[in-house]
């Protein structure tokens, strides 16, 4: 019997429409989500099943899978891990080490799923996948119940600002479709999640391997469950809430194609802007009026959050990349000291007092990072700490040598998120979220700008005392 003949009855209810509704006509936004869990929980099977049952696996890929054989199970299903492992080196070692993005759609919605595998690098990969996600699917093995791992995943997801979760209780077939097992897991999870804070939870009993409650409802075996299937839950989930703040637009680039035109290019991060609006250039505080909102498709009267536009002002103003255009009555937090939560991404972790580059919306700034606390995922508590290893979550203080501008991450993702970059390796060492403005501790790092002839600058940079603190020095090319 052919593979397809065995598979199709499972998802017969999900036939493609003869006349598929195109997403062009569909008004919904694509949902981005990540799936958290280990191979043992059946994560690859779950994602593979989603792709397979939504007919997102093309025939040549299906054929390639079948050719590789199916050793995973006795249902003649292909080994979905083979479908998901993109990299040859990973296949050879049997491990996946990175974040992979998969694309699929149903009649109602398009999806991007972040597959964030890995064991040791788990926190880092999850944080990466979660940073752009609207929702997280937390996978639990019904036989094992709620493990510490699931609590960790929930904590990371919550820290990264995700406020909706699907608790997928997998392998429900292996506990005899026992409702009591499912109820216990759901209850225990809700109790834990309540401690984390605000979080919308949908718990679903399912079997990824058998395709029950993934795309096709399992009415016979799980008759006691009347909630949505996984795909239904994903189809109706709202995308992440837009910021409630007033107008924010970090200037990405100043466009000056000729003397007669000066436009400020950027993406609206929060609120909206209309022709005639008075806006403030932060941090300088100059106020201007919006004369035009220019787009390729013609000028518009209003631009909402998410729109990439070019603003023209009624008068000349001193504004550059890194400045933030804001509503006149609600400027961002401004100061030299901030508190933030960070996730460390590189082997070296993060040391107390590290001097790094910080990149946030359009800005690259020198920053000194002091470490206050680290989050103990095991016990779910913040503990005092002065260094963060890789894959850690920490509370830190950021110290700038001049005023910096942020919003709280909880208020606005685009103006509250940042990455930290090593001046030595140029690699991204941490991702971070602004918590709040902090009190200045007084010992402000004084910066002095010197302008030197090139030969003298090279001599100065070569001095041992200067070399030793090279990372604190910024060299700008001469004009």
């Amino acid at each position, binding site marked *: 019997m052919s593979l397809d003949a065995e598979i199709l009855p499972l998802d017969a209810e999900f036939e493609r429409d003869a006349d598929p509704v195109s997403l062009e006509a569909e008004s919904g936004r694509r949902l981005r989500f990540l799936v958290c869990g280990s191979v043992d929980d059946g994560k690859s099977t779950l994602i593979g099943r989603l792709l397979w049952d939504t007919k997102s696996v093309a025939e040549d890929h299906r054929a390639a899978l079948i050719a590789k054989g199916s050793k995973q199970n006795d249902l003649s299903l292909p080994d979905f891990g083979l479908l998901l492992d993109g990299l040859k080196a990973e296949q050879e070692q049997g491990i996946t080490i990175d974040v992979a993005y998969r694309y699929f759609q149903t009649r109602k919605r398009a999806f991007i799923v972040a597959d964030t595998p890995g064991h040791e690098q788990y926190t880092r990969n999850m944080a990466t996948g979660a940073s752009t996600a609207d929702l997280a699917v937390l996978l639990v093995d019904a036989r094992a119940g709620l493990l510490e791992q699931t609590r960790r995943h929930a904590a990371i997801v919550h820290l990264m600002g995700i406020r909706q979760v699907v608790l997928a209780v997998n392998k429900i077939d292996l506990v005899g479709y026992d409702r009591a097992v499912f109820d216990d897991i759901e209850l225990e999870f809700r109790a834990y999640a309540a401690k984390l804070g605000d979080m919308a939870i949908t718990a679903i009993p399912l079997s990824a391997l058998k395709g029950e409650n993934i795309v096709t409802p399992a009415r016979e075996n799980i008759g006691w469950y009347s909630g949505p299937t996984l795909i239904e839950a994903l189809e109706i989930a709202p995308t992440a809430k837009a910021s409630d703040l007033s107008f924010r637009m970090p200037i990405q680039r100043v466009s000056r194609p000729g003397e007669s035109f000066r436009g400020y290019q950027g993406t609206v991060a929060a609120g909206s802007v209309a022709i005639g609006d008075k806006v403030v250039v932060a941090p300088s505080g100059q106020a201007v009026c919006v004369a035009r909102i220019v787009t390729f498709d013609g*000028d518009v009267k209003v631009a909402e959050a*998410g729109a990439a536009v070019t603003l023209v002002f009624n008068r000349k103003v001193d504004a550059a990349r890194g400045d933030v255009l804001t509503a006149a009555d609600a400027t961002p937090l401004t100061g030299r000291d901030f508190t933030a939560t960070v996730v460390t991404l590189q082997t070296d972790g993060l040391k107390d007092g590290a001097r790094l580059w910080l990149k946030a919306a359009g800005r690259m700034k020198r920053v000194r990072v002091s470490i206050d606390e680290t989050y103990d995922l095991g016990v779910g508590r913040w503990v005092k700490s002065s260094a963060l290893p890789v894959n850690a979550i920490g509370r830190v203080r950021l110290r700038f040598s001049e005023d910096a501008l942020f919003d709280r991450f909880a208020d606005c993702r685009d103006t509250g998120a940042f*990455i930290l970059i090593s001046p030595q390796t140029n690699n991204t060492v941490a991702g971070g979220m602004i918590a709040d403005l902090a009190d200045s501790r007084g010992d402000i790092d004084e910066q002095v700008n010197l302008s030197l002839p090139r030969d003298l600058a090279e001599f100065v940079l070569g001095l041992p005392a200067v070399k030793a603190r090279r990372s604190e020095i910024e060299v700008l090319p001469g004009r």
Partner: protein
Amino acid sequence: MTAAAARLQTTDDNSRSSRLSPHLKALENEAIHIFREVAAEFERPVMLYSVGKDSSVLLHVARKAFWPEPIPFPLLHVDTGWKFSQMIAFRDQTARDLDLDLHVHTNPRGAAEGLSPLKHGSSYFTDVMKTEALRQALDAGRYDAAFGGARRDEDASRSKERIFSFRSPDHRWDARNQRPELWNLYNGRIARGESVRVFPLSNWTELDVWHYIKAEDIPIVDLYFARRRPFVLRDGMIILAEDERLELWPGEMRQEGSIRFRTLGCFALSGGIFSEAETIDDIIDEINTATVSERQGRAIDRDEAGSMEKKKLEGYF
């Protein structure tokens, strides 16, 4: 008044209201953000222009990103000498129509050797005329950022690609050591000689590209549409037989039928499909019911397992 000056003075309100769905508008906004970020942070960006449908979309979004300013970087086409002749004509017409700064590079070594995908094998030919040629052109231009139209849904190894993909001075891609990419914050810091490949269309799917081409009325090479064309069947591939460089093998014969191409590259390596899809709507319907992936017609992907990943490690786009 010059065209540029006229552009700067346009103030008509919503002269062309956008017909994009919120979904496509979000993808476009994301791509524009990426274009601007690179233009602001890098000294010598370049856009790789392959003349295909994805490149056509990339070019269109680039124009939107900087308007009314012209695109502030050159375009580069790596010409293997074996592209469909219609692609070359389309390329030159587009460059004229849009007043583009287009650079064309062909590997002089391969051209002098008379390298042919038909005689020397697709793998060696691609190494020299695409991968090596691209490295030559990027080095010669001292480009520090190169935009490409690759999408993550194209191929399994692409699914783990970053939007800013870091490359060593010899253009190699280290899959194990990619920079983490969080939110929409892209790390563009590089040392001298290093570069990044940038993929603004990473999150688009093949269907998104077609819906966008339709909504924005973007010109594309006619080979994407089904027409009656002469072809030869070779190793199960439908090869366009419009070019005298294609010599028939013993037993082969020219046939004619309604065919089109889902991806465009070298005519001898890009297989067509039998199709009646003569319009973009037809193509969208066809893809909706298609059960075969887009790159299936590509000879280079079938050479060996993991071939795309291998090519990327060596510097192929």
